């Protein structure tokens, strides 16, 4: 197979001492930061964007990929050892993982999470290596009209995540697209939404938007609701598993991989749905269903494997189409673009060394994560005790540093605070951040594709429709009109597992959010 030869070449790139060092640095940094409460992988990559100025593209990407995988690992440690989950993708791990930890089985929970992540990450990265070149070959032939249609699908899919409020997702998307519009329009040279402010003519730097929304917004939001009583951290020894634990874990790992990878590869709003799907699947298939809710190891093994497999799956559309499906992938996309490289179907032809080096370093990072995380777990647990005043002061410090260093402009710091306030408002009123950041980063490209498509058809709107784009628009319409479509379908047509997963998601939101919180979907369901 061609892919294996390319992959071997990739390993040759990734195994040079410098690149290896950056891969290890990335996974260490990613895990540490994933463990720290309040900091997710998207914020980490956003805060580290200034590094792209000083690093070579290969090294920067290898490090970012390490952070991406490491952050997933770190997040699971937090949700097992603390009672509250950090990222939405680890909500479900917290359900069983924390119960296991309370029952004195923290070590087993951490072990099945780490080994499951390794298994899933390795299989999924292999799938990525095998699938991505084929997808890229197919994607090379698609026209600007099709690419525009796929981007519209990405916009709509990330706003319409199951179990969350659709109108709030669309509002967030609109805010993101608006921010993306600010600045000089490249085709006409006209200034849009700059209001005569010279600093806005070049547009709002994505670094400022990402750092503002993720870092400043998060720090301000948490500060407004900071827990005064520190959380109880469950002490942990070295992770290990008994024979029975292995027997109960290996199938959930594989099933989790099978669920996570395809969900990560389609733009469907990240890892939350697949992890819940995996949880519900394991609950149904388990020989010990009575243990669920009291600390069943399958309920940690499956979702954690799903989480990592979907992270790898998310790299397929990112590398082959230039379309991100998670917030972290969106920021990585911007990092690649800042080197003047356009991720897309031609990436495998134009930058083979870069892509295959990246994929090979994912394998290395994954193995390094397993070796690091098993012995280092007690140390990571210590990170959870960091004084919160220093943690959030540090986030604001590095956010200002990164945003200023991007353009050496005082104005950006004020803009950062404004966008931070926007991030605060979005968190307060349940507007999701993912559609906003995807809108900011992908919006300008979608406009460019649209205009190109219409230039080709000489202004005829019919030029936007060809067999492929019509199919894509049909999917968009289906997603948008899903509540109506569901009413029209006979009751049995909805997949029971999916319905149960949505129910679990709503339950979890219900517990972590305010008791009074009611989203649109809940509202309509009550009326039924």
């Amino acid at each position, binding site marked *: 197979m061609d892919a294996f030869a390319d992959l071997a070449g990739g390993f040759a790139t990734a195994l040079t001492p410098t690149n290896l060092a950056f891969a290890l640095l990335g996974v260490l940094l990613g895990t540490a930061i994933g463990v720290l409460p309040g900091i997710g992988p998207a914020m980490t990559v956003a805060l580290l964007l200034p590094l792209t100025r000083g690093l070579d593209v290969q090294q920067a990407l290898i490090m970012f990929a390490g952070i991406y995988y490491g952050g997933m690992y770190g997040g699971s440690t937090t949700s097992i050892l603390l009672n509250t989950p950090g990222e939405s993708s680890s909500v479900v791990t917290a359900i069983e993982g924390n119960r296991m930890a309370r029952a004195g089985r923290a070590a087993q929970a951490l072990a099945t999470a780490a080994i499951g992540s390794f298994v899933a990450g390795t299989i999924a990265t292999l799938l990525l290596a095998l699938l991505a070149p084929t997808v890229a070959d197919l994607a090379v032939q698609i026209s600007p009209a099709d690419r525009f249609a796929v981007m519209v699908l990405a916009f709509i899919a990330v706003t319409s995540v199951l179990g969350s409020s659709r109108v709030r997702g669309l509002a967030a998307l609109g805010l993101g697209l608006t921010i993306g519009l600010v600045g000089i329009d490249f085709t006409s040279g006209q200034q849009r939404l700059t209001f005569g402010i010279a600093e806005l003519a070049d547009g709002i730097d994505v670094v400022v938007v990402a750092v503002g929304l993720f870092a400043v917004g998060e720090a301000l939001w948490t500060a407004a609701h*900071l827990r005064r009583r520190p959380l109880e951290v469950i002490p942990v020894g070295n992770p290990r598993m008994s024979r029975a634990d292995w027997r109960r874990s290996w199938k959930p790992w594989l099933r989790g991989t099978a669920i996570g990878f395809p969900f990560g590869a389609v733009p469907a709003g990240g890892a939350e749905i697949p992890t819940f799907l995996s949880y519900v699947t394991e609950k149904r298939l388990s020989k010990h269903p009575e243990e669920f809710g009291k600390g069943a190891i399958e309920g940690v093994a499956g979702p954690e494997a799903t989480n990592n497999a979907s992270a790898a799956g998310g790299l397929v559309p990112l590398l082959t189409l230039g379309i991100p499906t998670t917030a972290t992938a969106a920021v990585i996309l911007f990092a690649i673009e800042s080197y003047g490289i356009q991720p897309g179907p031609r990436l495998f032809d134009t930058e083979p060394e870069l892509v295959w080096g990246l994929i090979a370093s994912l394998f290395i990072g994954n193995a390094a994560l397993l070796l690091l995380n098993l012995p280092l777990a007690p140390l990571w647990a210590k990170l959870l005790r960091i004084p919160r*005043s220093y943690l959030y002061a540090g986030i604001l410090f590095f956010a200002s540093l990164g945003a200023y260093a991007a353009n050496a402009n005082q104005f950006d710091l004020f803009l950062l605070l404004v966008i931070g306030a926007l991030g605060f408002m979005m968190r307060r009123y349940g507007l999701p951040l993912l559609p906003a950041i995807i809108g900011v980063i992908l919006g300008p490209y979608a406009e460019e594709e649209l205009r190109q498509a219409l230039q080709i058809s*000489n202004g005829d709107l019919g030029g936007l429709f060809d067999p492929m784009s019509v199919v894509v628009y049909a999917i968009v319409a289906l997603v948008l009109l899903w509540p109506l479509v569901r009413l029209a379908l006979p009751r049995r047509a909805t997949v029971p597992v999916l319905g149960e997963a949505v129910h679990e998601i709503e339950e979890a939101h219900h517990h972590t959010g305010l008791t009074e919180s*009611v989203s649109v979907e809940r*509202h309509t369901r009550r009326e039924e």
Partner: protein
Amino acid sequence: MTATSAGGGTREQGRSEYGVALFLGALGLLVVVSALLLPESRITRGPVGPAAVPIVVGGLLVVTSVFLAVDVRRGGRGEPEGGEDVDLTARSDWRTVGLLAAAFVANALLIESLGWVISGAVLFWGSAFALGSRHYVRDLLIAVGLSVGSFYLFALGLGIVLPPGILRGIL
């Protein structure tokens, strides 16, 4: 926190949710109007000019704001984001947020005159103070360590020179 005050908070949020819809609608109108006011450009290439996409995006915002208002009226509420350190049962602590914003603005105002080493230290120390740390000396040492360290890391490692300010020549 008693049940009555929590209930008051919800009613209060209900009203402020309309504020979000209003904000979205106003922003949408602004985007549409400013797009319509764009002067005709002779160098525009392609049949879709610079105004088309802003009109669609602004329209999306306006339509969304109406739907959001309807949703709020029917009892829909945005779900505040949870997190490890977030305790949603308590009221918003605006004093802490205000102090943090003050430390943040102080850094933005001072960074070019006094330099990053001083303004960054002010930012960290002020933020730690706002968040309730009362170890003044230890905080100061950490703040200065971070700002000096980051200054040299950026200068030597990345080739980005942060403003030295009044410490020019010393650093």
